């Protein structure tokens, strides 16, 4: 069995004459936490739509756990997705929101209850199992969204700027917990963010994309062991190195304030 969960080869996405992604190649191993960093409008969403199985690419190939996507015989990938906003169904309780995702998964129905309890326990929200999403805070809703992504036993989880709409205190606490959750569950995470500091704190590797059309500018391995501290000066140091490195490919013309 291959160790690669997601492999992207020569990926290109175009909309008519407009090119969003150009010749993108990367490989993500099982259990890795990979951050994707790129300037606004560089083509990250187009790339996410392809690796989530929503849209076929204009060129190139994508493999999920060794199986090629977008062929006549291929199935859509089994993934969890944490969106920028929680996208929970407000007319369903926390448990029912998780059950909806489970209904389309390969998890047997007999295991749902235990699975839901386990995941809600990991995220410290078991007491909200029968609550309506409207009764929860922004951070709690995003935890439920993460629980929904984890509960389906995904090949990998895509997180599209999941903390960007939260206040800094909540985002900080969730960031810290996220690293623990990922370590405990061993799930593979692809985390899209605008924040270089966040990427350095969370990820094992950072794929730095160029300004649109998105190309891989650098595949950066974060040289820090875990657990990490968000206020660690070494994180600021690495952040500074990355900022210096993206000046030209992001067309920043000497500005240093990109995060």
């Amino acid at each position, binding site marked *: 069995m291959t160790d690669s969960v997601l492999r992207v080869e020569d990926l290109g996405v175009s909309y008519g004459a407009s090119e969003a992604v150009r010749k993108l190649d990367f490989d993500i191993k099982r259990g890795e936490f990979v951050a994707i960093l790129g300037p606004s409008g560089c083509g990250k969403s187009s790339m996410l739509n392809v690796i*989530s*199985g*929503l849209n076929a690419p204009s060129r190139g190939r994508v493999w999920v756990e060794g199986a090629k996507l977008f062929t006549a015989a291929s199935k*859509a990938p089994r*993934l969890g*997705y944490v*969106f920028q*906003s929680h*996208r929970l*169904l*407000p*007319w*369903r309780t926390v448990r029912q929101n998780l059950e*909806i*995702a489970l*209904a*389309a998964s390969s998890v047997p129905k007999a295991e749902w209850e235990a699975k839901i309890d386990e995941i809600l326990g990991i995220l410290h929200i078991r007491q909200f199992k029968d609550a*309506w999403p*409207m009764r929860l805070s922004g951070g709690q809703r995003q935890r439920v969204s993460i629980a*929904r992504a984890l509960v*389906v036993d995904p090949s990998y989880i895509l997180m599209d700027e999941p903390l960007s709409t939260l206040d800094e205190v909540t985002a900080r606490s969730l960031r810290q917990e996220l690293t623990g959750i990922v370590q405990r569950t061993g799930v593979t995470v692809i985390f899209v963010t605008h924040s270089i500091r966040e990427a350095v704190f969370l990820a094992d590797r950072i794929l730095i994309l160029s300004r649109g059309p998105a190309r891989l500018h650098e595949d950066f391995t974060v040289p820090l062991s875990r657990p990490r501290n968000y206020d660690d000066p070494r994180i600021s140091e690495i952040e500074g190195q990355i900022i210096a490195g993206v000046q030209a490919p992001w067309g920043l013309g000497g500005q240093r304030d990109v995060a």
Partner: protein
Amino acid sequence: MSRDIAMTPPLHLRVPPRLVAALVAFISMLAIWHVMSLNFRPWVPGISSTLLAIEAQLGSAAFWSNFLLTLGRVLSAFVAATLAGSAIGLFIGLNKRVEVFFQPLLALALAVPDPVYIIFAILALGTGEAAGFVALTIAVAPFVANIVRSNVQARDHDLDQMAQIYHLPRHVRLWAVLAPQLVPALLTAMRFSFALSWKLVVVVEAIGQPDGIGAQIFNSFRLLRMRDVAAVAIIFIIAMQLMERGVLGRLEKRLLHWRN
């Protein structure tokens, strides 16, 4: 003793403002009615004589027979128009190509005055039950379709994408993701459909039916018994309002309980 009085809030603070407003409106309406009855006698009957007529109607077997007949017609037209309108609205709202085809037809259907449908239905189908049923369904369904269509199109597309990513089966998307978003619109459509249905049923009965509340009102009018016209109309309006608030109001509370 003085302490007890001080701790009891004044009476006017305990009456809900909505109730006060409703009471003022009701008393104003009675006052206008009374003034009009003094100035337009005998065409506008007095309040007390109308109340006596209401009592007489409530004790009359003929009235109840007409009432039940009209109620049956209202309910059948309401159900048919709501179902047909919702299905058409859903179909148009979910499919751009279908919308291109149906949009001009819907605009035309909404522009045609309701009596035109009623007259054409009577001319085509005669004065039997079918004419009224068909006319009402055709008159009300476009309004329902329009409400449902616009709400289907205004649904949260982010939830559609979530459903797609999690591979929710089509029936689950329809039942668990789309339908709950349409509940407020469907309830609005049902209220509208009900309100329009009972008013049009009365018109249809007045124009082309030998029985029912509309026919009874029209017969009283021909005999210039204005007290009976007012009495039958008032009973019927109150009954329809109670049904709307009782049945549809409860349904709304039940279906949208998660909001509270």
